[in-house]
């Protein structure tokens, strides 16, 4: 079981992702609606895994990823992307993201990726 922080401006996405993760026995310890809030909550909650949407207002997911990795080099951040954001995915790898989740969400994909990250 992992302690997870979800950062996504879409409540619909957070709700769907929460349902899948909790069904698998993981604990959602926090939610944030933009990168800025996500970084603050990361410092406060120190989750095992952070799921981070890329396109968000105020501060996007890539900026927040950079800040989290600067703060904690061992942070496990899984980026959440709509299918088309390939160049941003390349940037995310460069900045230290450990994996990607593609929208729209698919339960088996999420569980597979989470287990891979937890076992790495």
């Amino acid at each position, binding site marked *: 079981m992992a302690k997870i922080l979800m950062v996504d*401006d*879409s*409540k*619909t*996405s957070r*709700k*769907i992702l929460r349902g899948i993760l909790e069904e698998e026995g993981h604990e959602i310890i926090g939610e944030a609606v933009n990168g800025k809030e996500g970084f603050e909550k990361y410092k406060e909650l120190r989750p095992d895994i952070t799921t981070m949407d890329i*396109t*968000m*207002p105020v501060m996007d997911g890539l900026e927040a990823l950079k800040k989290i990795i600067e703060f904690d080099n061992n942070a496990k951040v899984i980026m959440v*992307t*709509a*299918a*088309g*954001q*390939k*160049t*941003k995915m390349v940037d995310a790898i460069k900045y230290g993201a450990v994996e990607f989740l*593609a*929208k*729209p969400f*698919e339960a*088996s*994909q999420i569980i597979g990726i989470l287990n891979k990250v937890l076992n790495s």
Partner: protein
Amino acid sequence: MFGQYFGRYLVENNKISQAELDKIMMDFENKPVKLGDIAVAEKLLTTKQADDINELQKKMDMRFGDIAIEKGYLLAEEVTYLLNMQGNPYIKFVQAVTDHNILTLEQIEVCLEEYKADNDLSDCDIDALKSGDIDRIIPIFVDTDIPYTGDCIGLAIRNIIRFINSSIVLKKSYKTKEYSFGNLAFQQMVGDQQFFVGFAAKGKELLHIAEPFAKENFTEMDEDAFDSVCEFINCTNGLYASKLSMEDIHIDMTPPFFVINQKLISDGDIYVLPILINGEQVDLLVAVNNPVRIN
């Protein structure tokens, strides 16, 4: 698909009653129409394989049969066999109408000629509607030759059919420079090309997108319902951006937004495609390389 278009025409022109159309459409609902369901029933695919293909369809703009062949699950001959099993929607519609003694074959033929004339449809358009093939139906209502706009609209429609409602009815698209709305959810994409993509309605009609996408009931177009529509647009645009990136055209998606009771204004064209979902109208709005202002 054919039943939705022609059936609706028959009701609107008092050729049949709504109750009779409901009875006809029930016949369709009681039979498997999805290729995956038929493939599983025919034991050509396992449920897991069909689910895999369905999930892949969410991430790529490809037909079920084409993915099945590419994954090595089915041979081209098997896909052809399944498509034959799936049947021609026109024949199925005619069969249901005559089985219930609602109209005779001759009456259907007369009505079809009237439908064709009233809607300014060619024989080719009617053939496309009869086939039920969405890729052939879309060009009847949208000029798909317009660079980017046609593709973008086509992909959005296919995603509505996949994720939201497979029984939508399209109306002829038109272009405008001003568009007033009650509710609008939209997203802009910037980069090599600039896109504005939105769904708008006069009132609560956007709930027909919000509810199936979030798998949740909403009573009003509140923030949560708008969020669901915005997220649907985000996913659809993601697929389109992905498709463009394969052509070396790179665009970035900005966060989606919603607004109420305002007007869109553009110096260029805003393409409007009216879509009936559960009988209520939602407009798909697309503008390419034309800045759109909200007033």
